[in-house]
Structure formats: structure tokens, C-alpha cells
């Protein structure tokens, strides 16, 4: 997994609450057995006017000029500004894969759905929860200021506005450590193998039917 340390990125605002993972990456693209290549189909049904199917050449698609990701001013954005309950619905990790493949490295919202939030950390994306009134203000600033960027520092746990204001955010210490260092969860867990084995031995006595 790629580490996340600092990011100074162009911000794209997606002004909609309860954005679900079906919208982030529609079901037809979940048939892939690969982890990469979902970026061109991020928000497919909103982003294009024609119906998308796997294998289509993105160059032949008809972009929806009214969808915010297609506005020229947001080209190359790496910070997604979103509303409440972002990433609700299906557990599909294809959603963060698509965001990451598109180039999004941080998402700022007042709240996230649990499974999506967790999946982000497994893929080098930093989801940041800020107060709804603060997010509201960032939406306004972003709309008013073409080329609006935010500087994110995971170690310091700050989002810094172009005006120099540093907004603090919370992040779980374990997740922060793993993301800062790009660490593989499985490798860390396997360091606990003796404890897993000891648990299993105990459990075989207490609940033998689970090992039948």
C-alpha cells in the first residue's frame, strides 16, 4: 500500500449527501477480477451521458458536462470534498480502488459510512471527518476560488486552507501509523501468530463444534 504523509491537492466538491458505493462504481464494473483500472468508471452513471460497460474505451464515451468531475477547473483534483454519510451501501472495495485510480488521495466529509471509511485506509486514501459547518464553509470557499487547494498533513493531523488556517482532525492512532508508513496489515497480524494459535487451542476446548 502507498503511504500517505502530506498532500497539497486541488479540491473537487461533490455537493450531495448519502453518496453510495453503487454511485461511486456501478455494479457492471465489479465483474473485473483485477484491483486496478477502475478510475475511468468512477461515478460512471453521473460522469457520462452514455451507458458504460466494462471494456469500453473511455475516449469514445460522452462526458456529462454538468457533472462536477468533468469541469475543466477540477481536472487533476486529488482531494474530494463531500457531504454526510459518504460511501454508504455496499462493502465493495472497488469504490476506494476507483477513487484511488482516478487520483483521489483524501476525502473530506462530515461523516462516512463505516465499511467505506475502513476500506479507504487499506488503499492509501485518507478519509477526514470535519464538522458539518466547517465542511459547509469549505464548499463555499471552493466554489468561490478557482484552483482552490488544501494542504493535508497526516502526521500533524491538519488540513490547511489557502488562507493559512489549520483545521485539526481525529484519526485512530493505529490506522495513522499504518497509513504513514504504508504498512501491510497482514504482515503485522502475522507477528501475533502465537496468540492466534493460543486462542484457537483454548477455543477448541470451549467450543469444539467450531473446529469440527
Amino acid at each position, binding site marked *: 500500500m502507498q503511504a500517505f504523509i502530506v498532500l497539497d491537492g486541488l479540491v473537487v466538491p461533490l455537493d450531495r*449527501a448519502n453518496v453510495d458505493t*453503487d454511485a461511486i462504481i456501478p*455494479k457492471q464494473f465489479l465483474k473485473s477480477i483485477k484491483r486496478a483500472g477502475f478510475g475511468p468508471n468512477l461515478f460512471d452513471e453521473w460522469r457520462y451521458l452514455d451507458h458504460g460497460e466494462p471494456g469500453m474505451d473511455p475516449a469514445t464515451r460522452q462526458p456529462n458536462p454538468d457533472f462536477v468531475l468533468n469541469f475543466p477547473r477540477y481536472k487533476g483534483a486529488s482531494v474530494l470534498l463531500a457531504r454526510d454519510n459518504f460511501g454508504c451501501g455496499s462493502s465493495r472495495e472497488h469504490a476506494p480502488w476507483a477513487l484511488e485510480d482516478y487520483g483521489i488521495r483524501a476525502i473530506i466529509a462530515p461523516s462516512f459510512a463505516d*465499511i467505506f471509511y475502513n476500506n479507504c485506509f487499506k488503499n492509501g486514501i485518507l478519509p477526514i471527518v470535519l464538522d458539518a459547518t466547517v465542511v459547509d464553509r469549505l464548499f463555499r470557499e471552493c466554489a468561490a476560488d478557482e484552483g482552490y487547494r488544501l494542504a493535508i498533513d497526516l502526521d500533524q493531523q491538519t488540513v490547511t486552507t489557502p488562507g493559512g488556517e489549520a483545521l485539526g482532525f481525529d484519526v485512530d492512532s493505529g490506522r495513522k501509523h499504518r497509513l504513514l508508513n504504508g504498512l501491510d496489515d*497482514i504482515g503485522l497480524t502475522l507477528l501475533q501468530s502465537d*496468540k492466534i494459535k493460543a486462542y484457537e487451542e483454548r477455543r477448541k476446548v470451549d467450543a469444539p463444534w467450531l473446529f469440527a
Partner: protein
Amino acid sequence: MPGQTLFQKLWDAHVVHVEADGTTLLYIDRHLVHEVTSPQAFEGLKLAHRTPRRADAAIAVPDHNVPTTDRSQGIADPISRLQVETLDANCAEFGITEFRMDDIRQGIVHVIGPEEGLTLPGMTVVCGDSHTSTHGAFGALAFGIGTSEVEHVLATQCLWQKPSKTMLVKVEGQLGRGVTAKDIALAIIGEIGTAGGTGYALEFGGAAIRALTMEGRMTLCNMAIEAGARAGMVAVDQTTIDYVKGRPYSPTGAAWDQAVAWWNTLHSDADAVFDRVVELDAAKIEPQVTWGTSPEMVTTINGRVPNPADAPSEIKRHDWTRALEYMGLAAGTPVAGIPVDKIFIGSCTNSRIEDLREAAGVAKGRKVASSVKLAMVVPGSGLVKQQAEAEGLDRIFVEAGFEWREPGCSMCLAMNADRLEPGERCASTSNRNFEGRQGQGGRTHLVSPAMAAAAACAGHFVDVRHF
């Protein structure tokens, strides 16, 4: 010290290791696997030269991509076919039991787990699928995970977790005739909202929950995720134990007695303290119908499509306006009377035998309205289908004009060939009415099986209690 919640009991029984910050390595008893969220996990294992720690704890089934029509020729779509074949190959390589497409036990992963006794009380159950919350109906801690965690469970049989907050949803009183677990679920989501359960494990309790069958409890826990909660659960009681007894993978003999002794302790203590308690009166719950593009956008069959001007906030006004536009509905329209194009009875929410009995009870002696383009019934598993056929339910459906299909996820998410066309309106017993969920431009209204069957025969939504 106050007593423990069911969640705390289940959690404590699975702790392997706790880090200084409270992050816990939790042991996973059962890992359910399907074809959509597993290929990249198996690939990751192979790239790292790892093997499953306990292949015996995993069970796999293809469900999302499988056709619900004649399967003798396999899957027509080559991309869907490859995904299912990849599951077959991975399970064969790593020694994981799989119920393949031609196996009578094949079905929706959340139907076959309980049906086979693979889901048992007291277990931790995970699957790369958000509707894993279903299995909490058995007094299990069950939640959906992403593909990285699928790989993690395969490799280590554990997951890193932090304890959730706990919410008790207490439904006292008695449900009215024609009102079902699906209506309770939608009423709860209408009450607390689609993010109301975020960060919580929900426990459903109260007289109306205790009166539910296991099928009803599964429907309810299935929808916990639509309230934002990764896990929903119901305490173990005699209903649970009676359902589990004698299933193919259930314990027997001395192990059964040992298991039941522990299972009987799997309930929240009377003095347990929850972080939040929500109470509903079952007698006041009416048949529910969603009108928008989020499960919280729900009203009763006697309700009307709301006016965005009445929304409680600016953001909600925006969402409601957009939802009405997408759904092609005008504010103030009575729900009863909204015409439907297609009917879908199925999904991990409502495809079990009891659901089919309820729907057949309404369809019996009636005909699907001529204005309805397609009414389909998709049983949750091969065994549900077999049982329904033994009871003659298939004949009732076919005589009424429904299509009787092969088991799978089908039009709940339209990954196979079953889908809505743009603008088509569907009465669906599934769990999500998101934009495009059942097909791009499709309009989904979530209802109970009985309400879906009534809508099929009337050609529009109608109160099943007076139908």
C-alpha cells in the same frame, strides 16, 4: 458493575489480542465468500505466497453473477463467467468448500449460511458483502468487510477492530396483520435515518422481535446496514435453537449440548447499558413503501410523496428534490396508486421460504395485472426453491403470471441479466433503492413480499391489508 450487552459478550469471546489504543485482534469463526469480492483477495494471497489459515472456516458460493434462467448452458456473459470460474479455481486450489452453480445448495450467500447451519449462534461471521449483518439474527456478531479484509481473514483468521457503540432498538407490542419484519426494518430506518446506526452495533429486542420467526429476524438484521450499522443482532432464544437444530453443519451429540448451554447465555443482561435506545410500537407500524433513492426516504402505504419544501434541512431539501426528479414523482402523490412496471420478489432480504409463502398467499387465485411487464420470483437458494415447489408455491406464482426463476442475487443489484430499463418502476423486496441500483435509470420502491405481490396483481401499490 452493570450487566453485559449481547455485543459485549460476543466481542469478549473472540478477543485474541488488544493493542494499547484498544484496537483489537478479533477471531473470525466463519468466513463466507462469493465471486465478486474475493478474486483480488485470492490474488493477493498468491502474490505473497500465503495460504488460508483455516480453509475449513470458509465456505464459498457464486450468487451475484449467476443467471436465474436456464443454467444448462452456463453463463452467457463472458466477464461474469470468468468471475465465477475464478471462484471455482481459487476454491479448488485452496481447498475451500464451494457450492457451485449446479449444486442444489447454491444460493445467495446470506441465505445458504443459515440454511446449512454454517451460521451458528455465538459466531463471528464475515463476508465481503455489506448484508452480512443478516447473520446477526442468530445471536452472532456478523458484519461486511472489504476485499483487503477478505484477504486478511483468509491469511490470519482474524481482523483488527475497535468495539462499536451499542444501540438497542426495542419494538414492543404486536404487529398488525399483513405487516412484516420488512416493514419494521423500513420503519426503523425511517425513524433513525440511513446513517443513524453508523458506528453502532444494533440489537433488536422487544416483544415484536421475539415473536418473529428466524426468517423475519434475518430480514430485519439484513437491513441494519441500510441504517448505517455494520452489525445487527437478535438475542438467542428457543426460536433460534429450534431453527439451528438438525442443519447439515450444526453440531450434534455432546457438542450440541455444550453449544446450547453457551448459546442460552447469548442475550443482553437485564441491567446492560446501551449507548442509545430507540423504541417503536409494533402496533403503529403500517406497510411501508419507499418513495426516493435512499431507504430512509420511506412512508406508509397510506402516505404521500413528501414535498421538498417540508424537508428538515437545506441539504435534505436538495436530496429530496433530486430524488423526486430521479423517481419521476410529484410531491403530494398518494403512494397507493403509483403504477409499477416490474416486480422483483427475492434478494438476501426477502427470498426465504416464509417470504415466498407470504407472497404466494397474496398471489393465489389472482393474476398479475396486464400493465405489469414482468413479475419475477427468485428463491434465495436451490433448497428454498425445492421447498417452495414441494408446497406448490411455484404453481401459484406461475398461474398468476409470475416468472419462477433459479436462485441468486438477481435484480437486487442487476449484475446478471435481470435488470430495470431506464425509467421503469419496480416494486422490489430487496434492500436498496439507490439510483441505478437495479439498472441505470431504474426506479426502485422497497416493500415487503406481500406488498410486492399485491402491487403485481393490482398494477400499482395497494394496501395488502385490504386487498
